[in-house]
């Protein structure tokens, strides 16, 4: 067991809408991440993945608000820190973020190096511009990015290049945790591969100690991350290793997600693709019972009545369902035949 880098306990955050309604987009989420490990978060759009990414940084601004729970990064509990301290000492330095839309993540009228200066100066005001330039150049070279990029404006970079530049900027201060929110979803396959290689490279060189990778592309997670967590309607519905999640999903939702994709493995030709009917529930008024019950084909009366907690099963795995894991496996097996 490696050292725990990130520990999240019962984190709950909410959006307050324009009409003063509370939307709990992250509902009692707990997770932990060890040094050198990466965690994938999967789920449909609107199920709280990106909100979880933002919530994990411990810095909230409207419409996102903190409700309860703890975030501990490398032994430091940041959920009790005041926002200014978090901004100065935690963001970018301990935990960093790669936004979903890297295309627009950079100020269009600023050279890349000038933005890097602003980022570094926010944490190390004493560093000179020359030192910053040198360290940025070195880091870019190590990540196989041309240092010429530093002098450019965002418009002068291609989409893939922009994405990799954003990754390099996010990790310039060697944060302990990197949260990548769909870093490759808007890219072509070649650029995607380069982005993934770059993230792996960052891990191997130790510039980041751990990573949370959010995506809706499950096959990608299988290749990139050690563990996978599936989210539904703001809650975790299943947690397990990447391999188990892909080949042996237990929760009906995970099962549905995995059934809707092809994992590039032997025998993939014979798999039939299925879709999950319906859409995720409106989080303004979440259902009282199991949130997936409405769309679940195995649901029975009790599912809709009472909330379901996260249960452990097998080794180190957990899921949120009333039906016993062994029973579910049996059902899935029968269906296949």
């Amino acid at each position, binding site marked *: 067991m490696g050292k725990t880098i990130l520990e999240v306990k019962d984190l709950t955050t909410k959006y307050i809408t324009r009409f003063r309604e509370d939307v709990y987009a992250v509902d009692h989420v707990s997770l932990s991440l060890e040094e050198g490990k990466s965690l994938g978060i999967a789920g449909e759009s609107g199920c709280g993945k990106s909100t979880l990414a933002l919530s994990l940084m411990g810095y909230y601004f409207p419409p996102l608000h903190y409700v309860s729970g703890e975030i501990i990064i490398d032994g430091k509990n940041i959920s009790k820190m005041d926002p200014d301290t978090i901004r100065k000492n935690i963001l970018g330095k301990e935990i*960093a*973020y790669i*936004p979903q839309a890297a295309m627009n*993540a*950079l*100020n*269009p009228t600023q050279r890349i190096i000038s933005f890097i200066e602003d980022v570094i100066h*926010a944490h190390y005001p004493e560093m000179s511009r020359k030192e910053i330039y040198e360290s940025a150049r070195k880091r870019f070279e190590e990540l196989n990015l041309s240092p010429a990029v530093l002098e450019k404006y965002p418009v002068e970079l291609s989409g893939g290049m922009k994405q990799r530049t954003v990754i390099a900027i996010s990790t310039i201060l060697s944060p302990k945790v990197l949260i990548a929110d769909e870093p490759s979803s808007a890219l072509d396959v070649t650029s995607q591969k380069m982005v993934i290689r770059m993230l792996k490279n960052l891990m191997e060189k130790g510039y980041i100690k751990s990573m949370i990778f959010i995506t809706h592309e499950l096959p990608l997670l299988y290749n990139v991350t050690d563990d996978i967590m599936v989210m539904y309607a703001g809650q975790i519905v299943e947690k397990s290793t990447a391999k188990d999640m892909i080949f042996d999903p237990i929760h009906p939702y995970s099962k549905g997600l995995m059934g809707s994709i092809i994992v590039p493995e032997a025998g993939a030709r014979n798999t039939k693709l299925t879709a999950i009917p319906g859409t995720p529930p409106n989080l303004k008024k979440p259902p009282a019972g199991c949130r997936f019950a409405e769309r679940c084909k195995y649901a029975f009366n009790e599912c809709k009545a009472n909330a379901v907690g996260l249960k452990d099963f097998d080794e180190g795995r957990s899921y949120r369902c009333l039906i016993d894991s062994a029973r579910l496996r049996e059902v899935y097996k029968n269906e296949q035949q």
Partner: protein
Amino acid sequence: MKGYRKYFAKKLLWFFLTLIIAFVLNFVLPRLMPADPIANIMSRTARGINESAATRAMYENYVKAFGLDKPAIVQFTTYVRNAFRGDFGQSFSQYPRKVNDIISNAILWTIGLQMPAIIVGWLLGNILGALAAYIRKGFDKLLMPLSLFLSCVPAFGMAVILLGLFAVKLKIFPVAGGYGFDLIPTFSWKFIKSILLHYQLPFWSIVIISIGGQAIGMRSMSIYELNADYVKYSRYLGVKDRKIVRYVFRNAMLPQVTGLALSLGTMVGGALVAETVFSYPGLGTTILKAVTASDYPLLSAATLIITIMVLVANFAIDIIYGLIDPRVKATQFE
């Protein structure tokens, strides 16, 4: 750099093409007005002369002196030749004053009034708009309707309101003119004080109406930029608010720069109203007088000046914009 040069060569070519067309139109359009300029002068000069032979002789003399008996094309070539030498001939309505003399006098008043007014209005409007976007809440709720109201008030309306309130009712400021009509232009304190007093009402009438539109534009641009992805990203990297605010307002300002340059270019045209209401001795009043008197040479020269100012402003925007916005520069290079 080569692409840049090519871009500007092309722009320059269009610049001159537009100028030539405008030059021709400036000559032709005033002459299409259904009026007889000589009759206008005659009504002034031949007053009291009853002998019809004498008035006829005077009339023909004027027609000959102004070259109006020659065919239009000859008039035009003469006009072009003289214009290239910087000579726009003599004014009909203020005969025998030279057009150059009239315009150079008037334009100083206009620039002196309009340039500071437009710049002050632009600055105030942008500052207020940016603050409204940044503070929101009550300030925004108060400023927005006020700005909308101000931007809808026509220029002459604001001028008349100010005139009625401060000049007629409260008698703080003079009603009309550029300086006291009993004064002779000299560098004396009395004269400067008189100029400043006469300056206030036309100045503020222009400032106030331009604040509204600028504030609305800047507010919506700033709100748009404040919600841009790069703001969120910069925050999550711990970049200081002071820096982020600078990014936002710099980007929000960019379209506003175009607005400033354009309104500086069209200031002479816009001057007409404020100057007319206050009888300010600027180019606007001059143009109005020239129109009513069918004063071809004066009208042609005045409109030519407006044309050149608009064209220069447009050309300047193109150059400046490429320098301050890398996105525009990128398209210029293509």
